C-alpha cells in the first residue's frame, strides 16, 4: 500500500513528520477529555485516514458559525483539520460560484458516495413549500435531502442547524426546523452554540476521521465531551452563587466585585457547553468573565426563554391577566357556592317552619 494515499503521506510530501499527528492527537484527546492514551490511537487513525470529503451547506444562517470556525484560537494546530478534509463545497469560502459551484458539489457527491460528510449551518424553512430560502431555484429542503442521501454522516453546526435557532424563534415565520428532523436515520452530530465553539467542531470531526464513528453524544445529539457539563458547573463565579452573593445589575457594587450573574438572568445553570473551560478568542474570556450572563445559546429555543435578563427561576410569561381572571372567577365561584348553600339552608328553614304549624 502506498503511504501517499493517506493523510500521513500527504503531510510527508509537505515535509511534515508523523509528530504532527501525535501532537494533533494529544490536542484533540485533551479537548475531548479522552484518556491521554487515546492520543496515540487518534494519531494513528488520522495518519491512516484518507482525506475526508466535506460538503458544507448553508441555509438560514448568518455566517457566524463559519466565522467562528475559521478563527479558531490555535491557528496552526486547529487549521490542521482543514488539511485533513477536502472542503468540496462551501459557498462562503469557495472561489467558484453559480453552476460551477453546484457542479463541484455534485462531483464530490459522486466521487465519495456513502463516504462524505455533510456539514450544515442554518435551519431549513418548511412553510409555504420552503420558498423562504432557495439556492439556484431549489429550496434548502430539496438541496439537503439531495445531498444527505448518500452521505456517511451529517454535522449540524450552530444552534440554527441543531435546534432551529433564531429563525425558529417565536413566531417562526418561515416554519424553520432543525436539521435533525430532515435527515432520516443518518448519523448526526449537533454542534450547537451561537456560534459554536470551534474546538468542538474540530474535535468532533477529528474523532470521526480517526475512529470512523461518532463520538459519544448526549440526548440532544451533542458530543458529551463538549456539552457534558453546564456553564454553571464550571463557572469561576460559582462560589459567589453558593455564598448567595449576586450582582443585582450590571453596574452595581456586586457586578464590580464579580458576583454571580444569576439575578440578572444568567442561564448558565441550564446551558451545556464548554465556554467556561475553553473560553473564547484564544482562551481570553467568555461572556460571564466579561460581566454578562450566559444567554444559553447552545440550548434549544434559547431565544424564547422569557428574556435574557429574566432570572431562571421566574415564570416565563406575564401572569397578570391570567391571575386577575382567576381572582374574579374564584370570587364569583365562592359567592355562587355560598348562595347555593344559603338556598339549601333556606329551604330547610321553610320546611321546619311548616312542621311547627
Amino acid at each position: 500500500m502506498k503511504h501517499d494515499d493517506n493523510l500521513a503521506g500527504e503531510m510527508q510530501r509537505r515535509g511534515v513528520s508523523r509528530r504532527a499527528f501525535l501532537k494533533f492527537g494529544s490536542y484533540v484527546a485533551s479537548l475531548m477529555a479522552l484518556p491521554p492514551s487515546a492520543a496515540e490511537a487518534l494519531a494513528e487513525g488520522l495518519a491512516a485516514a484518507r482525506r475526508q470529503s466535506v460538503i458544507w451547506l448553508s441555509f438560514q444562517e448568518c455566517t457566524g458559525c463559519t466565522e467562528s470556525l475559521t478563527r479558531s484560537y490555535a491557528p496552526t494546530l486547529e487549521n490542521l483539520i482543514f488539511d485533513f478534509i477536502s472542503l468540496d463545497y462551501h459557498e462562503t469560502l469557495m472561489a467558484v460560484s453559480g453552476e460551477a459551484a453546484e457542479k463541484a458539489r455534485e462531483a464530490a457527491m459522486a466521487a465519495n458516495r456513502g463516504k462524505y460528510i455533510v456539514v450544515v449551518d442554518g435551519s431549513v424553512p418548511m412553510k409555504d413549500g420552503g420558498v423562504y430560502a432557495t439556492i439556484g431555484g431549489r429550496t434548502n429542503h430539496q438541496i439537503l435531502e439531495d445531498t444527505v442521501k448518500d452521505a456517511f454522516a451529517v454535522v449540524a453546526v450552530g444552534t440554527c442547524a441543531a435546534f432551529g435557532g433564531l429563525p425558529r424563534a417565536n413566531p417562526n415565520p418561515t416554519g424553520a426546523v432543525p436539521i435533525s428532523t430532515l435527515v432520516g436515520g443518518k448519523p448526526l452530530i449537533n454542534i450547537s452554540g451561537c456560534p459554536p465553539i470551534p474546538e468542538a467542531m474540530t474535535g468532533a470531526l477529528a474523532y470521526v476521521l480517526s475512529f470512523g464513528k461518532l463520538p459519544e453524544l448526549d440526548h440532544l445529539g451533542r458530543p458529551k465531551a463538549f456539552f457534558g457539563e453546564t456553564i454553571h458547573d464550571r463557572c469561576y463565579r460559582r462560589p459567589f452563587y453558593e455564598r448567595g452573593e449576586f450582582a443585582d445589575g450590571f453596574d452595581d457594587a456586586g457586578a464590580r466585585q464579580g458576583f454571580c450573574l444569576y439575578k440578572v438572568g444568567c442561564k448558565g445553570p441550564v446551558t451545556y457547553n464548554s465556554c467556561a473551560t475553553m473560553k473564547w478568542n484564544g482562551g481570553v474570556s467568555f461572556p460571564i468573565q466579561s460581566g454578562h450572563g450566559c444567554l444559553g445559546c447552545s440550548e434549544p429555543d434559547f431565544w424564547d426563554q422569557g428574556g435574557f435578563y429574566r432570572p431562571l427561576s421566574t415564570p416565563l410569561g406575564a401572569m397578570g391577566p391570567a391571575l386577575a381572571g382567576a381572582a374574579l372567577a374564584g370570587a364569583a365561584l365562592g359567592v355562587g357556592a355560598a348562595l347555593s348553600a344559603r338556598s339549601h339552608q333556606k329551604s330547610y328553614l321553610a320546611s321546619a317552619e311548616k312542621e311547627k304549624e
Partner: protein
Amino acid sequence: MTSPCAASEPIETGAGFADALISEAIALVERFAKTGETATIDLGGLPMSNRDRAELDDFLGRGEVSANIDVIGRTEVWETRFSGVWRVRHFGGAEVATDLIEIAACPKILFADPRDAESAARGMAKALELKHGIVETPHET
C-alpha cells in the same frame, strides 16, 4: 474608580491541586520504574488555577534534557529535575494548546517514526543523487 471588569479575572485560589498531582505522578513513576509502563497526565482538563500551575512548574523544575520541536507550531519538551518525569507542552500559535506530564524513558514525540524514516531513506538517496548532479528518475506520480 473600580472598573466593572476589575473582578473579571478568575479568582486565583490555590486548590491544593499541585500536591495532589505530584502524589499521582509519584505513583506513576514508581510503576514505570518497576514495570516500564509509561503514563501521561493531561493538565488541560483539570480545573487548575494559574497559581496551581506555577506551583507545579516550580516543584518539577527543569532537569538535564530539553528540546524544541517545530511541527505545526512549536512544542517544548524537557525533563524535569526528576528523572523519567517529562513535560511536553504543545503550542498552537502563542497559546499553550496541550500541557502534559509524561512518565517515560523519553516522550514519544521525540522519537522518529520508522515509517517517516522509510521515506527519509528514499529522500536521502534522492538528495545524494542531486548532490552529485545525477538526475535520472522521473518524478513519481
